[in-house]
């Protein structure tokens, strides 16, 4: 199998304005936490908080484009948000294969996103299937 237990992967993403604006344009989530600096500050954040689900887009990109095979489909994924993300944050994505299930062509990963201070922003697990 192309993917082996313990294989590790890293990617760097920047939460650029076009991603933030594009996400809002498509999904229409314009909650003041994401759009109003004063509102977000009043809640204890240092600025407008970016949508956590943007991270799922980065995860999708990793699975669909960065694995050593394009023959993949997502079976399951979860995400736990640990810290806020802000516009133009640099995000460091780390993933590791934690299970290989040859009988059903399934691979399980754990992953996290860290910011440049190495603080965990989000973490979780996902399982993919390898298409024949």
């Amino acid at each position: 199998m192309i993917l082996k237990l313990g294989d590790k992967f890293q990617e760097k993403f920047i939460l650029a304005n076009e991603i933030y604006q594009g996400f809002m344009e498509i999904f229409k989530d314009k909650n003041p936490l994401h759009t109003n600096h004063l509102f977000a500050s009043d809640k204890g954040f240092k600025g407008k908080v970016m949508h956590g689900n943007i991270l799922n887009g980065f995860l999708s990109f990793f699975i669909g484009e960065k694995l050593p095979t394009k023959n993949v489909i997502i079976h399951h994924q979860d995400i736990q948000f640990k810290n806020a993300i802000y516009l133009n944050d640099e995000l460091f994505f780390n993933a590791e294969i934690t299970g290989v299930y040859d009988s059903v062509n399934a691979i399980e990963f754990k992953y996290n996103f860290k910011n440049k201070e190495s603080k965990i922003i989000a973490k979780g697990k996902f399982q993919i299937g390898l298409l024949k």
Partner: protein
Amino acid sequence: MKRSELLEHLLEIFIDTLDNEEIKLSEETTANDIDEWDSLSHIMLIVAIEKHFKIRFTSKEIQSWKDVGEMLNCIEEK
């Protein structure tokens, strides 16, 4: 582990994976008897069973099962 205990473990895995507390499992149960047991959840079940019992199946073994009883036979042989 006794066969009845294996079935109990299997039931817990089915309930957890398929997210349905109402599931009843017997040796004769097949995928046709449980609404949530579709092709994708079948993969999730196999992965959960392999993890739980710390065993590995082959695709040939999985394809040969006709019901939960045959699944239990295979687990017992591991």
